[in-house]
C-alpha cells in the first residue's frame, strides 16, 4: 500500500511539474533553420513561353489586394501572391516570427516602424542596403528612411509616415468659444474651459493603451528613448523631455481635464460618437479612419497642427506608419524589391490602394502626395486641404528618433502601467520607468550591448 502510493505520487508529481520543456519543443530546432536557405515561398515557374518569378507578400493593410492586382496586371515577369494576415498585435507579428523560425516566411512582410529593429535583430529582415536604388532613396522622406536604417544598413522600405496632428470638433470649439491651441499651454487652458463650461465633455482622451501616443508626445518634446551611439543600445525612456510630457499629462488627468481610458474600446467610440471628446491627437491616417467610422459627423471635424512646446522651434513625432521588409528566406530579393519600389513610389499603386475606400495615409514618398490629395474627398472636412497640412507637418518630424529592439514588449509594459495609473495606482512616469526596467533584461538576454540613462 505505501509503496504503491509513493509511486503514484511520483508519477503525479512529475505530471504536475511546470512545463519547462513545453517551449523547447518549439524552440529546439530554431537555431539552424534560417541558415538552411531553402525557401518554399519564392520559386520560379515556367508557364507557357514566359518564365515568371513568383513572390509572396503578407500584409494586414487594407487595399493590399487591389495594389497586388494592379501590379500583376502590369508585369509579366514578376507575379505577386498576396496573403492577408492579421494585424501585427492581433497575431500578425507572431505569425511572421514563427514562419521565419520555421523557414517559410513570405518574400515580403509588412512591419510597422516600432517593430523594424526587433525583426532586423532577429534576422527576419534582410539587409537590403544594396537593393535600394538611388532613385528610391532620394524619393523618400529622409526621416522615414532614417527609422528603418541602422548602422547605415537599410532593413525595410517605408510606405507611409504619419505625423501626429490635432483633429478637433469645429462646431463644439465654436460653441464654447475656443480657438485652436498653438501650444500645449493653450491646449491645457482650452481643456480647463471645456471642463468648466460643460461638465461631461472633455478636451481630449489620454489613452491608457497609448504607448504609441506617449512616444509621439515624447518624440515631439525632444526625447530620445533609444539611441545607438557607440555601438550600444542606450536606453533612456524617462529622460528630461519625457518627464516633462509625463508631468503634463499627469496634471491633466489628475485634474480630470481629459478622459483617461483605452482608445481601442467601445468606451472611446461612445466618447467620440456622442461628442463628449472635443479633439483627438493621432496620426494623419486617422482622418480617413474617422470618415469611415463616423460618416454622420461630416462637416464637424477639422485638422490642425499638433500643439507645440516651443512654437519658435516646431517639431512633431509620428504615430503609425508601415514599412515593407524582404525576409532572409526570400529566394528572389531583387524581384521583391521591384514590387516594393513600385508599391511605395508609383502613383498607380497609391490609386489602387485608395480604390478600396477612403484613406488619408501620408505617403513616405513626397512625390505621391499630389495623388493622395487629388483622390481624397474633402467634403467631410469642410473642404480643408488636409494634405497640405500633412506636408507641412511631415517636414517638422524631428529626425534621429530610434525605436527599440523589443518595442512590442516595451509598449505592453507601458500600457499595463498606464492602465494601473488610471485605476489610481502609480503614475504616467511610473509606467514609463516600469517599461524601461522591464525592457533591460530582455535586451541583456539577447546579448546586446546596452547602457541605461535616466532611470
Amino acid at each position: 500500500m505505501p509503496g504503491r502510493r509513493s509511486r503514484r505520487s511520483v508519477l503525479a508529481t512529475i505530471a504536475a511539474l511546470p512545463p519547462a520543456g513545453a517551449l523547447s519543443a518549439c524552440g529546439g530546432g530554431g537555431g539552424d533553420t534560417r541558415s538552411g536557405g531553402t525557401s518554399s515561398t519564392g520559386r520560379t515557374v515556367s508557364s507557357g513561353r514566359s518564365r515568371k518569378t513568383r513572390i509572396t507578400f503578407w500584409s494586414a493593410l487594407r487595399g493590399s489586394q487591389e495594389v497586388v492586382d494592379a501590379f500583376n496586371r502590369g508585369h509579366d515577369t514578376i507575379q505577386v501572391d498576396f496573403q492577408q494576415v492579421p494585424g501585427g498585435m492581433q497575431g500578425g507579428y507572431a505569425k511572421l516570427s514563427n514562419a521565419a523560425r520555421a523557414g517559410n516566411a513570405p518574400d515580403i512582410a509588412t512591419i510597422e516602424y516600432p517593430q523594424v529593429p526587433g525583426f532586423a535583430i532577429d534576422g527576419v529582415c534582410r539587409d537590403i542596403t544594396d537593393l535600394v536604388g538611388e532613385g528610391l532613396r532620394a524619393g523618400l522622406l529622409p526621416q522615414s528612411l532614417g527609422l528603418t536604417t541602422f548602422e547605415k544598413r537599410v532593413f525595410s522600405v517605408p510606405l507611409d509616415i504619419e505625423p501626429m496632428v490635432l483633429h478637433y470638433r469645429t462646431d463644439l470649439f465654436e460653441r464654447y468659444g475656443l480657438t485652436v491651441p498653438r501650444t500645449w499651454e493653450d491646449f491645457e487652458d482650452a481643456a480647463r474651459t471645456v471642463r468648466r463650461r460643460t461638465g461631461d465633455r472633455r478636451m481630449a482622451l489620454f489613452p491608457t493603451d497609448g504607448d504609441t501616443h506617449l512616444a509621439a508626445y515624447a518624440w515631439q518634446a525632444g526625447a530620445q528613448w533609444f539611441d545607438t551611439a557607440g555601438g550600444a543600445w542606450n536606453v533612456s525612456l524617462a529622460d528630461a523631455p519625457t518627464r516633462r510630457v509625463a508631468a503634463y499629462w499627469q496634471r491633466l488627468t489628475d485634474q480630470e481635464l481629459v478622459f483617461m481610458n483605452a482608445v481601442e474600446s467601445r468606451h472611446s467610440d461612445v466618447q467620440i460618437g456622442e461628442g463628449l471628446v472635443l479633439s483627438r491627437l493621432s496620426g494623419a491616417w486617422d482622418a480617413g479612419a474617422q470618415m469611415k467610422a463616423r460618416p454622420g459627423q461630416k462637416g464637424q471635424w477639422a485638422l490642425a497642427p499638433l500643439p507645440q512646446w516651443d512654437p519658435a522651434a516646431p517639431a512633431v513625432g509620428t504615430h503609425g506608419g508601415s514599412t515593407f521588409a524582404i525576409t532572409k528566406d526570400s529566394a528572389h530579393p531583387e524581384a521583391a524589391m521591384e514590387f516594393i519600389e513600385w508599391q511605395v513610389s508609383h502613383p498607380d499603386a497609391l490609386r489602387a490602394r485608395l480604390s478600396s475606400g477612403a484613406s488619408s495615409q501620408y505617403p513616405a514618398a513626397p512625390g505621391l502626395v499630389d495623388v493622395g490629395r487629388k483622390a481624397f474627398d474633402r467634403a467631410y472636412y469642410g473642404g480643408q486641404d488636409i494634405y497640405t497640412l500633412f506636408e507641412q507637418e511631415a517636414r517638422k518630424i524631428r529626425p534621429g528618433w530610434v525605436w527599440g529592439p523589443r518595442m512590442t514588449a516595451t509598449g505592453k509594459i507601458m500600457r499595463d502601467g498606464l492602465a494601473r495609473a488610471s485605476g489610481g495606482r502609480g503614475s504616467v512616469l511610473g509606467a514609463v520607468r516600469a517599461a524601461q526596467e522591464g525592457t533591460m533584461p530582455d535586451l541583456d538576454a539577447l546579448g546586446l550591448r546596452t547602457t541605461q540613462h535616466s532611470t
Partner: protein
Amino acid sequence: MTSATPVSVAADAAARPSPRGPAATAPVPKGRRSARRRELGACGVLMTPFFVLLVTVFLIPVATAVRLSFFSDDQPGLGFGPERTVFAGLRNYSAVLADPTFLGGLGVVALYCVVYIPLMVTGALVLALLLDSGVVRLRGTVQLALFLPHAVPGIIAALIWLYLYTPGISPVIGLLGRADLTVDFLGVHMVLPSIVNIALWSNLGYNMVVFYAALQAVPHEVIEASVVDGAGPVRTALQVKAPLVRSSIVMVAMFTLIFALQLFTEPMLLSQSTPMINSRFSPSMYVYDAAFTRNNYGLAAAASVILLLCTIALSYGVTRWTNRAGAAEEAAR
C-alpha cells in the same frame, strides 16, 4: 488509497523482509526462481510505458530547456550582425532574476499560494468530514455536484467565470447592483481573489473526494472508541478523524502547491478583459510572453528552469517538514 496509520504500516513493511533476508541467500527452489523471473518480466512490461513517457515528455524536454537556457543567438553590439549561437553561461538567468516583472510574477504567485492553499485544504477537508459524518443527506448527489466542476476543463471554467465577472453582462453583478453593491471583480484589489475563486470552484470537489476516500479507511473501532469516551461529532471529526488522514492532507497540499505555482490558464483568459492582469502576471505567463511575444527563447527557458527549481525545492521542503513533524508526533505518542 491511503492507510489509516501509514507510519506503522511502513514500519511493518520495512521490518518484514529482514527475517526473510537470510532465506533469500539460501538456494532457491527452481519453481520459485521462474516465478520470480515472471514477476520481474511483468514488472518490466507494466513499468515500461511509464518510463518511456517519463523520458519523452519530461526528461528530454527538461534537458532541452536547460540547454536552451545556457545558450543564446548572439550578435555583438547592436545586434544587426550575423547571428551565431554561443554559450551564454548564466546570462539568461541573471537577466531573469534582475527582471522586476518576473520577480513581480513570483510575488503574485506566492500571494496566490498563501491565499489559495489553506482555503482549498481546509475547505475540502471540512466538506469531506461533513459528508463522512452523515449529517448530509443525498450524499451521492452532493458528492457528484461538488465533483462536477472538476470535469470542466480549466479554460471553459475561466470563460464561465469571465462571463460572471464582466460588468454589464454578469447577472451576479446585476443582482448585487440592485442591492446597491458595486463590486468590480476584475479591479485592482479583487482580481486575485477572483482567480482564487475559479481555482477553488474547479478543484474543491476533487480534493474533497480524496479526503472522503481516506476517511472511509479510518477503522470503525477508533471512531466507536472515541464516541464511547464521550467525544461529540465535532470533536471526533477534528481530533480523531482529521489526524488520521494526515498523509492525504499532505499529499493534497503538495499537489495544490505544484499546480498553484504554474498559474496560467485563468489569468491568461481574464487578462483579455482587465488591464489589471498584464502579460507577465505569473511566472508561467512570463515564460509564454518571453518565448512568443519577445522571441527570446533563452530567457524563456531560463525562467522556466527557475520555476521548476522553485517547485522542486518547495515540494521537497513540504515533504521534509511534514515527515519531520510526523515523526515528532509519533515520538510524542
